[in-house]
């Protein structure tokens, strides 16, 4: 690789990558699509904060409270800058991407809110797609069930692309919200946001993007994208667990009813009613994931210092290499785009006659190769392809071609075991 990007130096930032697994196996971590590993830069910031600066935020006025609040709110600034948010107040910290998606879903069809954009009932429609993660399916199913609205979805082509051939029938005047994934966590496909958005604007609906798999792997700019809401999750951007982000247009966040009630999301409380703080605090009920937000701030600093462009380039080379090498394994079928065109570094596949659970387990047991097997929280997509499960290798900034070689060697061994 020749990108001014030093993967060996980067690997040293991630302590676990030099770990030996039980039995002396080295770790070959190809499961970053599931969750990314953490660099020392993130771990240390969290440890230091927990040990020396921790206290509750917002409500505490003493020295530690000021330090914690400043660190927490600085993290919001960092995240806002990282995703190009026009205002820091549009960045809501949640516990993960799932909460961000549910938060928006619960914003619709609430009888106490009469903003027409968020009214939802029988006759109104919600549009998602067949390639969604369960976290961008179930919240909308629950919403449809609660309100009587109709759930519709884009289908997926054999090549693993969003099928937009019926865009106009699918997204209509009845549509209130379209929520689709930016980059598929199974196929690797990067979806054509602008094309869908143009139709969404035509019919006056809102659009949400599940960017859980794009924010870690490309420079995402919410202003340039032009959507209304965007969700992602901290643990996939080398940040900690327990933190996610909802970005939403300020005026929409203002128009939405609160989701959860509690400390910090209020302006004033009486026994019989309350008024609410402006966004983002309106949506951050209770003590937030303080140290986790701070860790996320350190994570986006880390990625920015390396440069998202360099990361994109590195992953592109890895993905090209992987598609080539996997293509030579007999009986291996890639589910998703087979070229580098509009796709990220996530490669899912089946091995003829061998169940993915067995593939994954042997890769792990014998070679320390960590991949994900199953339906990757995208069961409908697997049903679409008529398969119960796939094996998925997903790459990140710290992966190397040698690790892809280890995967391929492992697959050959799997085939030998089950021959």
């Amino acid at each position, binding site marked *: 690789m020749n990108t001014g990007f030093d993967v060996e130096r980067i690997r040293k930032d991630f302590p676990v990558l030099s770990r030996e697994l039980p039995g002396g196996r080295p770790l070959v971590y190809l499961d970053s699509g599931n969750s990314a590993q953490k660099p020392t830069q993130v771990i240390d910031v969290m440890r230091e904060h927990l040990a020396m600066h921790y206290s509750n935020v917002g409500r505490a006025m003493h020295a530690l409270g000021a330090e914690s609040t400043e660190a927490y709110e600085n993290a919001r600034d960092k995240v806002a800058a990282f995703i190009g948010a026009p205002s820091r107040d549009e960045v809501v910290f949640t516990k993960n991407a799932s909460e961000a998606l549910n938060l928006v879903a619960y914003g619709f069809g609430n009888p106490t809110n009469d903003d027409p954009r968020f009214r939802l009932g029988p006759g109104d429609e919600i549009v998602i797609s067949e390639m969604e993660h369960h976290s961008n399916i179930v919240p909308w199913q629950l919403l449809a069930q609660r309100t009587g609205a109709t759930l519709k979805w884009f289908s997926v082509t054999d090549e693993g692309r969003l099928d937009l051939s019926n865009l106009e029938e699918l997204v209509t005047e009845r549509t209130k919200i379209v929520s689709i994934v930016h980059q598929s966590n199974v196929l690797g496909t990067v979806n054509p946001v602008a094309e869908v958005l143009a139709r969404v604007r035509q019919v006056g609906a809102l659009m949400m993007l599940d960017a859980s798999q794009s924010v870690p792997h490309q420079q995402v700019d919410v202003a340039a994208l032009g959507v209304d809401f965007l969700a992602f999750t901290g643990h996939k951007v080398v940040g900690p667990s327990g933190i996610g982000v909802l970005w939403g247009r300020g005026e929409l966040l203002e128009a939405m009813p609160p989701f959860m009630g509690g400390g910090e999301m209020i302006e004033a409380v009486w026994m019989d009613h309350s008024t609410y703080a402006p966004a983002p605090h309106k949506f951050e009920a209770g003590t937030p994931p303080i140290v986790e937000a701070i860790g996320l701030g350190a994570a986006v600093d880390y990625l920015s210092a390396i440069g998202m462009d360099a990361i994109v380039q590195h992953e592109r080379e890895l993905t090209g290499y992987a598609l080539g090498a996997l293509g030579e394994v007999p009986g291996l079928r890639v589910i998703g785009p087979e070229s580098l065109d509009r796709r990220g570094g996530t490669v899912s596949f089946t091995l003829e006659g061998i*169940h993915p659970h*067995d593939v994954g*387990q*042997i890769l792990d047991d014998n070679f320390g190769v960590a991949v994900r097997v*199953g*339906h990757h929280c995208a069961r409908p997509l697997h049903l679409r392809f008529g398969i*119960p499960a796939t094996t998925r290798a997903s790459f990140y900034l710290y992966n190397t071609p040698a690790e892809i070689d280890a995967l391929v060697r492992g697959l050959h061994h799997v085939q030998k075991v089950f021959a």
Partner: protein
Amino acid sequence: MIAESMYQELILEHYKHPQGRGLRDPYDAEVHHVNPTCGDEITLRVKLGDGGKVEDVSYDGQGCSISQAAASVLHELTAGSTVDETLAVVEEFTRLMQSRGQVEADEDVLGDAVAFAGVAKFPARVKCALLAWMAYKDAVVRSST
């Protein structure tokens, strides 16, 4: 001895050469169980005989090697035993599987099924190992009532 790896020779043997596979007549009860998270399925029939004996356990299904081998091992263990004996094994097997690797397997009770001990550490695979066994338990209940 608790297995280091999940893929004991014995499991692979059973997977490649499943014992008693195929649905047979006659039977007292047939059940169909699915593991929705991974899609593994099994159809299983039980024929009980006199004196509480298990006459035949026949099955068909699809899924990973663990779920398929578990059905094969089950078939072998039940052959010629009484229902009570087999339910004791099912119970011990279930206990082992749900132990998250914290419990020593009792080889005296489990016989070949001890080969699955390594599975207990993988919550996601536990259901695969248990699929046939739970189906069997279910089928026995239905046969006796």
